[in-house]
């Protein structure tokens, strides 16, 4: 979160019968209950004044920034390791206590990539269009990392 490590907590749900229940089909009460459950699982960890709640098509997710004490307690390799990947954009940010960087925002016109093995028009992963400001911001990060390794 703006450079601070985060707790990432994600929830997914299945309909009776076992099929994945896409987040657009969650009722407002299920959505609210799910956000509450995410916060319950993260519990006293992190700084609740620095949170972001966002959804993908399958999962609802919470980012909560770690506290300074938690960051100090992380293993050295976490701070020293090279990044392994850059998370793509969310489908929708539902709430956040501080504005995220442009790179954390949804693509304006994502390609809807069907999830492997999934059936149904709502089960997709957003692939960056590469043209909108959030995509350009994510691409710029990847370019900087590639240049740093060269």
């Amino acid at each position, binding site marked *: 979160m703006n450079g601070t490590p985060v707790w990432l907590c994600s929830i997914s749900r299945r309909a*009776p019968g076992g099929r994945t229940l896409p987040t657009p089909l969650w009722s407002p009460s299920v959505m609210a209950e799910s956000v509450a459950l995410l916060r319950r*699982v*993260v519990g006293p960890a992190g700084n609740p004044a620095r949170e972001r709640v966002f959804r993908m098509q399958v999962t609802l997710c919470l980012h909560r920034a770690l506290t300074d004490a938690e960051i100090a307690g992380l*293993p050295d390799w976490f701070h020293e390791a090279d990044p392994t990947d*850059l*998370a793509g954009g969310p489908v929708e940010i539902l709430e956040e206590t501080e504005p995220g960087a442009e790179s954390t925002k949804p693509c304006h016109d994502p390609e809807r990539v069907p999830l492997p093995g999934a059936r149904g028009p709502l089960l997709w992963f957003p692939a960056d269009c590469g043209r909108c400001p959030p995509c350009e911001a994510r691409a710029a990060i990847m370019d900087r990392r590639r240049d740093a390794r060269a």
Partner: protein
Amino acid sequence: MSRLDTLAAGVRAGALANPLTKAHAPVLPSLGLAGGVYVALSVNL
């Protein structure tokens, strides 16, 4: 404390000791819950 809260406390402690480095894949360990609800927790950058 409910079983979920106890389980979550253990997962939080484990996640701090073994954070998932800067990855966006669905994370482990998972907290499987009853009723088709699945929760996962990790520490990421």
